[in-house]
């Protein structure tokens, strides 16, 4: 199908984009990669009356690392992350996710910030954002505010970005050398939504105990979830088989999936725990550590 009609504007700065969004109200949307928005418009699930294209906004196309943080602009595409040596070397979780988001062609166009703003309950990036403790900078006509992942992710397809606002930058803490991460995803085929997926990031102390843990799960509820109880179980502990089982059980307990062609609710609830366990094990392996008996 063809999308419903809309008026098309090109914004060349965040200020211009925010001003256009303010002028046109709730039915106006930012158009970045468009890889979720355009299909939604074709199905008439979304019918914005105004699109503000930001693709020519050169100043938004940056990946910079400084002072222990990675800053990414609004037009950075998944493929920019996939092919970045910096990301591959220093940001294991982001690197893992950028290899499996959608399909290779979509990754050349889709943006990280666009995916986060779309906030699909089966999306890959929201789970990673939760596990990595990332933040979003949101701009409106009065200025900017910083929102952490837990506040940013509000509900299915709903984020902290309000009418007249634009997400302009996402900030990911630079993991320490003692940090291992892993993204575990089951999908029926490339390009399909995840059947279930888990993002895990573990920072260890010198003695091998867990300093900080981040776990996000997706496609198993109305929105991506942070497995806070599981993270708390890991903190300060040596990672044993029994501990992994307990953390996996916390993920399964939180999951409230719906049955569809990808699997029954029971299966998804079970398998998301398995994915969390595999994610913990791979995070440790990547640090050259083994699970304690």
């Amino acid at each position: 199908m063809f999308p419903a009609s809309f008026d098309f504007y090109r914004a060349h700065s965040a200020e211009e984009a925010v001003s256009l969004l303010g002028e046109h109200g709730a039915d106006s949307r930012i158009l970045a990669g468009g890889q979720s928005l355009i299909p939604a418009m074709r199905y008439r699930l979304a019918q914005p009356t105004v699109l503000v294209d930001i693709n020519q906004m050169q100043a938004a196309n940056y990946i910079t690392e400084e002072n222990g943080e990675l800053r990414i602009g609004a037009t950075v595409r998944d493929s920019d992350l996939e092919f970045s040596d910096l990301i591959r070397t220093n940001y294991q979780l982001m690197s893992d996710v950028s290899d499996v988001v959608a399909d290779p062609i979509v990754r050349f166009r889709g943006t990280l910030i666009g995916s986060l703003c779309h906030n699909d309950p089966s999306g890959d990036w929201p789970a990673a954002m939760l596990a990595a403790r990332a933040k979003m900078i949101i701009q409106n006509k009065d200025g900017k505010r910083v929102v952490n992942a837990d506040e940013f992710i509000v509900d299915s397809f709903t984020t902290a970005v309000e009418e007249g606002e634009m997400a302009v930058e996402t900030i990911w803490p630079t993991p320490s050398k003692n940090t291992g991460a892993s993204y575990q995803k089951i999908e029926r085929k490339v390009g399909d939504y995840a059947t279930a997926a888990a993002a895990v990031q573990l920072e260890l102390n010198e003695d091998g105990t867990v300093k900080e843990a981040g776990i996000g799960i997706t496609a198993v509820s109305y929105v991506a979830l942070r497995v806070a109880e599981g993270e708390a179980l890991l903190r300060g502990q040596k990672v044993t088989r029994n501990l992994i089982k307990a953390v996996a059980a916390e993920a399964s307990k939180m999951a409230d999936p719906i049955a569809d062609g990808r699997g029954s609710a029971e299966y998804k609830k079970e398998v998301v725990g398995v994915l969390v366990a595999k994610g913990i094990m791979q995070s440790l392996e990547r640090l050259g550590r083994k699970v304690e008996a």
Partner: protein
Amino acid sequence: MEITLNVNGQEHKVDVEPRTLLVYALRENCGLKGAHVGCDSSSCGVCTVVLDGKIPVKSCTMFAVQAEGHEITTIEGLGGGANLHPLQKAFHEQHGLQCGYCTPAMIMSSYALLQHNPDPSEDDIRRGLSGNLCRCTGYMNIVKAVQQAAADMRQPAEAAD
């Protein structure tokens, strides 16, 4: 809206609505039927064209107005007739198709892949083409065709070494 699309090195002045998808502008306004329409859900990749010499895009998931200012390459721009591009020649020789519906996009996606990775492994090719669906074949001959074309396209550089 009056826009100018640069397709295969030629300028096309076209009058489109903002909602006109690039694939329809190419097919209906520019008369280039090589980019096909398949799934209507951005899944199948048969509409793949190349932007700025190396970026593969699904032309059903981009508005024509967004392609203004970019160089668009479609299968018609790669070659034809007696002047087949090494990829077209290889798909022919390796029989990398059955019905042919996915073939132009398969070739454009392969073209972009080879710009990024001139010497891909079989796994790189299978991964790189995983956004393009073929419902006839088992992909075996498609992979072989891309391997042959990659070798052909590397040859001048290797000969110069």
